[in-house]
């Protein structure tokens, strides 16, 4: 039979190689659509109506996405919508099938014989008004349909095994009953009346099934996304431990050393601790704790800062450039970066206005502290300048310098940077300790709270800056675009919690 042959052809298409399916347009679009739908319907093995069709398409789409293999059968523009439009008339066409088919339906209603159940259900729909039915009302179609269903049975069983759907089978069995009942009712004489009722019922069922299936598809998507997420996290973990660069912070997309990555992580943890310390300070001040109790909290905050200087010292040994380039901190903080951290005299300048009231002696002490830290900063800056000058001379090279030797010397000079960052951190630490010494316990508590809040605001400013609406976002190079976005994401994820205070 011609139709049979063609059915087989398209069947094989709609089977394993779904992506070829749309290339074959056997007869009318209706037939093509029919082929499509029947495969889904068989997949479901439940009532052959609008709802089943819909759910089959949705699930098939989900499965295809999961497989990432083939384009769904209905990727042609507007095809799904078009096929959906056809659904209302779909069952009706089958109602015109000869009575003979119903017998076969009756025989095989026992177990999961989706094939026959389908055809039986199809038969029990009673609606003579289908436009499609007018086109394809030949028994040939019916037979062809059944052959197709049979041949597709294997495929369906496979597919239904892949995506474990207990729901549909339940629907199947649930729907079976009314269908069965209606089978008998369908053969009564008042067809128009029953047809309308049945149609309404069928559409209700469709709607219910549609929403159930959508929900299921969504859940399946969530599950697969979750799996993907855990996989990505594992990759990230692995790559981090290998010291690779991920979600980078540099437009040159260079590698971040493992020491730097480790420091970044420790710093993030330190920032969280900072928030905790600050809330302790705040609570301590508000609760008007005794000086003794407050002293403990204040000393705890000093130790907290001692800790970060210690961590920076460790990091400076392995990757001082990570510290001096400020890649461990936010963009706004980087504006004010001095030798891998904050400038002590700037901090004191900021504090002077915030620390009132102070005794005259305290004021003298603070100003003297500012002055001496300025002198120390100046000295260190000049020392660094000399280092830079020396490095420039080495890298520029003389007339008779051996390349390798030149590099070795340059490396040696660059290593001196560690010493400067260490001294700068030392200066910062000394300044904070001196502040603690000059101020009373309560003043010190307030002072450190001010410091913490100040840097918190600076970090928040950085996040806001990174996420402000801009016109030029896309640039030519994909890499730099991606890293810019990643930088924003990394920064906002790192510092979003600073918004908690505002």
């Amino acid at each position, binding site marked *: 039979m011609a139709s049979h042959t063609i059915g087989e052809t398209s069947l094989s298409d709609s089977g394993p190689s779904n992506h070829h399916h749309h290339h074959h347009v056997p007869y009318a679009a209706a037939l093509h659509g029919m082929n499509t739908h029947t495969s889904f319907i068989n997949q479901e093995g439940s009532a052959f109506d609008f709802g089943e069709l819909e759910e089959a398409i949705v699930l098939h789409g989900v499965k295809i996405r999961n497989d990432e293999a083939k384009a769904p059968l209905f990727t042609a523009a507007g095809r799904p919508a078009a096929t959906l439009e056809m659904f209302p008339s779909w069952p009706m066409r089958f109602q015109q099938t000869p009575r003979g088919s119903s017998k076969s339906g009756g025989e095989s209603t026992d177990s999961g014989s989706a094939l026959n159940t389908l055809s039986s259900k199809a038969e029990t729909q009673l609606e003579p008004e289908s436009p499609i039915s007018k086109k394809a009302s030949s028994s040939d179609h019916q037979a062809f349909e059944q052959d197709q269903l049979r041949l597709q049975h294997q495929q369906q069983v496979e597919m239904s095994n892949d995506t474990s759907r207990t729901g549909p089978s339940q629907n199947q069995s649930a729907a079976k009953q009314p269908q069965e009942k209606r089978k008998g009712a369908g053969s009564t004489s008042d067809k128009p009346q029953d047809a309308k009722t049945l149609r309404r019922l069928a559409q209700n069922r469709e709607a219910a099934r549609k929403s159930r299936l959508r929900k299921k598809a969504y859940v399946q998507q969530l599950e697969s996304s979750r799996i993907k997420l855990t996989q990505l996290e594992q990759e990230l973990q692995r790559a981090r431990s290998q010291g690779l660069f991920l979600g980078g912070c540099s437009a040159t997309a260079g590698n971040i050393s493992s020491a730097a990555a480790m420091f970044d992580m420790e710093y993030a943890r330190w920032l969280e601790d900072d928030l905790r310390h600050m809330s302790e300070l705040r609570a301590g001040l508000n609760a008007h704790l005794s000086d003794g109790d407050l002293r403990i909290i204040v000393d705890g905050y000093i130790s907290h800062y001692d800790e970060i200087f210690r961590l920076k010292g460790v990091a400076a040994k392995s990757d001082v450039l990570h510290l001096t380039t400020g890649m461990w901190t936010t963009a706004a903080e980087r504006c004010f970066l001095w030798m891998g951290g904050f400038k002590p005299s700037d901090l004191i300048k900021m504090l002077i206005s915030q620390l009132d009231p102070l005794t005259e002696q305290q004021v003298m002490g603070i100003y003297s502290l500012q002055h001496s830290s300025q002198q120390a900063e100046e000295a260190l800056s000049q020392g660094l300048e000399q*280092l830079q000058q020396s490095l420039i001379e080495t890298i520029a090279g003389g007339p008779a310098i051996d390349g390798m030797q030149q590099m070795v010397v340059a490396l040696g000079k660059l290593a001196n940077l560690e010493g400067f960052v260490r001294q700068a951190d030392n200066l910062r630490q000394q300044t904070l300790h001196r502040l603690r010494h000059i101020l009373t316990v309560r003043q010190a508590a307030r002072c450190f709270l001010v410091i913490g809040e100040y840097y918190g605001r600076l970090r928040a400013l950085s996040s806001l800056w990174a996420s402000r609406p801009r016109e030029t976002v896309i640039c030519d190079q994909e890499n730099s675009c991606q890293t810019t976005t990643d930088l924003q994401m990394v920064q906002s994820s790192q510092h979003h919690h600073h918004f908690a205070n505002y």
Partner: protein
Amino acid sequence: MQYQTADSWGFYVPMRSRNMEDPLERVAKLASESAVVIFTLSGCCMCHAVKRLFCGMGVNPTVYELDHDPRGKEIERALMRLLGSSSAVPAVFIGGKLIGSMDRVMASHINGSLVPLLKEAGALWL
């Protein structure tokens, strides 16, 4: 800014039997001859920073560059022992007493003890 160069040291040394002197003794002797004495190496940038710090405060330190001394290596080793660190320079003496390296100098400046020391040694006049 003035500071004595290796020349003056070289000039000083022949008057004694330098080979007999213990490096530590030499260090002590040199340190006591000026209010502020700094031992450096010519290429050392941190030494430059320390020098700039004192000069910025109005102090004229006496600087000895160990790489220009024939027995500089010994002195370096002695200083390393004194400082308890792997780097001998910069080594700062004020009033004949060892203060330490850059970190100690800065710490003492921040906590306000450096200026009195300098005044005491006669390196600063208010």
